[in-house]
């Protein structure tokens, strides 16, 4: 016999279902009066430091049809490359920027849209700088475990070419699935759940 490791098991994920907007963006789906505003709707205020950008896109299924019942969250560093989180030990992030946003996909075209700032660079575990990026998390009916991915910037070719995560993508043509299109200040980032253009999703 040996000592027991006695770790617990993570609670299993279940799909967010067709009505995730009721729970996470109730005002968006017509349930008013419970919360003043939907969380994560506004990321940037007048006091936020950094270059204003918008990131918009769609989440598409295997037939290319946009999902209208998905929810997208993003998480990113501030303009100086610091996260507004207790686990950020390298310095104090911009107090006027939480770094977190949430947007339902819906409406006619199923688009999401974030008004945010361009993140600064943050280091990989070995100290190499990663290219500027935004972390994405996608849930919806039909998605059993929330999907993690990242968006990189098309105007950062040099940084992208040396990015430790992008360098790990074996099939090089798939790197493009992690890079937005457009240019400052308006970027587009479509997320393909499957098919030829399937986005690289992360187990991270």
């Amino acid at each position, binding site marked *: 016999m040996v000592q027991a490791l006695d*770790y*617990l*098991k*993570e*609670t299993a*994920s*279940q*799909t*967010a*279902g*067709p*009505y*995730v907007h*009721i*729970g*996470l963006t*109730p005002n968006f*789906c017509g*349930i008013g009066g*419970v*919360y003043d505003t939907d*969380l994560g709707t506004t990321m940037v205020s007048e006091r936020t430091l950094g270059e204003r950008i918008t990131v918009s896109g769609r989440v598409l*299924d*295997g037939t290319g*049809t946009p999902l209208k019942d998905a929810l997208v969250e993003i*998480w990113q560093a501030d303009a100086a490359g610091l*996260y*507004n*989180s*207790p*686990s*950020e*030990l390298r310095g104090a992030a911009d107090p006027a920027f939480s*770094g*977190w946003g949430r947007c339902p996909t819906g409406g006619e075209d199923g688009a999401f849209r974030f008004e945010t700032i361009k993140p600064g660079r943050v280091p*990989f*575990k070995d100290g190499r700088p*990663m290219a500027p*990026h935004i*972390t994405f*998390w996608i849930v919806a*009916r*039909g*998605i*059993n*475990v*929330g*999907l*993690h991915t990242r968006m990189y910037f098309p105007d950062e070719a040099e940084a992208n070419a040396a990015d430790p*995560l992008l360098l*790990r993508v074996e099939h090089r043509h798939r790197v493009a699935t992690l890079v937005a299109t457009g240019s400052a200040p308006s970027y587009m980032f479509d997320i393909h*759940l*499957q098919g030829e253009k*399937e*986005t*690289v*999703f*992360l*187990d*991270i």
Partner: protein
Amino acid sequence: MSDRADRKPETGAFFPRDRNWHAPALTPGYKTSVLRSPQKALLSLDGTISEITGPVFGHSMLGELDNDLIHNFAKPGESAIGERIIVHGRVLDERGRAVSGALLEFWQANAGGRYRHKKESYLAALDPNFGGCGRTITDEQGFYSFRTIKPGPYPWPNGVNDWRPAHIHFSVFGHGFAQRLITQMYFEGDPMIWKCPIVNTIADRRAIEQLIAPLDWANTIPMDARAYKFDIILRGRRSTLFENRMEGN
């Protein structure tokens, strides 16, 4: 931030997700997954600072009725119809450590199994006093609780005659974005749990059982509300004793 100012922040990477414990992406018995499941392998990477960090939500953002679904949408003096229940428990990580300051958001159907949503087509009646959403934040020891009515089961278009067992959806933030989780809580003794194609996307029976909240008689409030206890486990994280130090430093 002030909620855990006295705590030393942890910076270790998270334990890898056990992908055999969670449902796979493609589960044909749950038809919607067929066209929404990635078919290429996930790119595996030990967490970086972009995933070990995460947003903080302060208790000050909560409204007085946010954790009371019986009243948070009801007209003054009225309340939602249904079996009154308390749902409570702890948020821990895989090491058994309390996760303080965790934002929990929950949503559910009303007592008749009807959601308040324009796409909902079930003929069960809406309850004018029930919205169906609520939220709370765990305390320093990871405890949370909220009050609601027991949701009803309902039919859904998947197989010809598929029904969802009564359930409450949970969205959970931990201390790192890698811990982000959405799941569903079921109720002890419901025979419909084992017939549900969404429940059965999970292969391991123990993982399903961990989603079933037992009736908690000890915490049941006499003449008021029965209690169900639902603990939520988030990914653990490594000790950083030998990490975060570059070679030669």
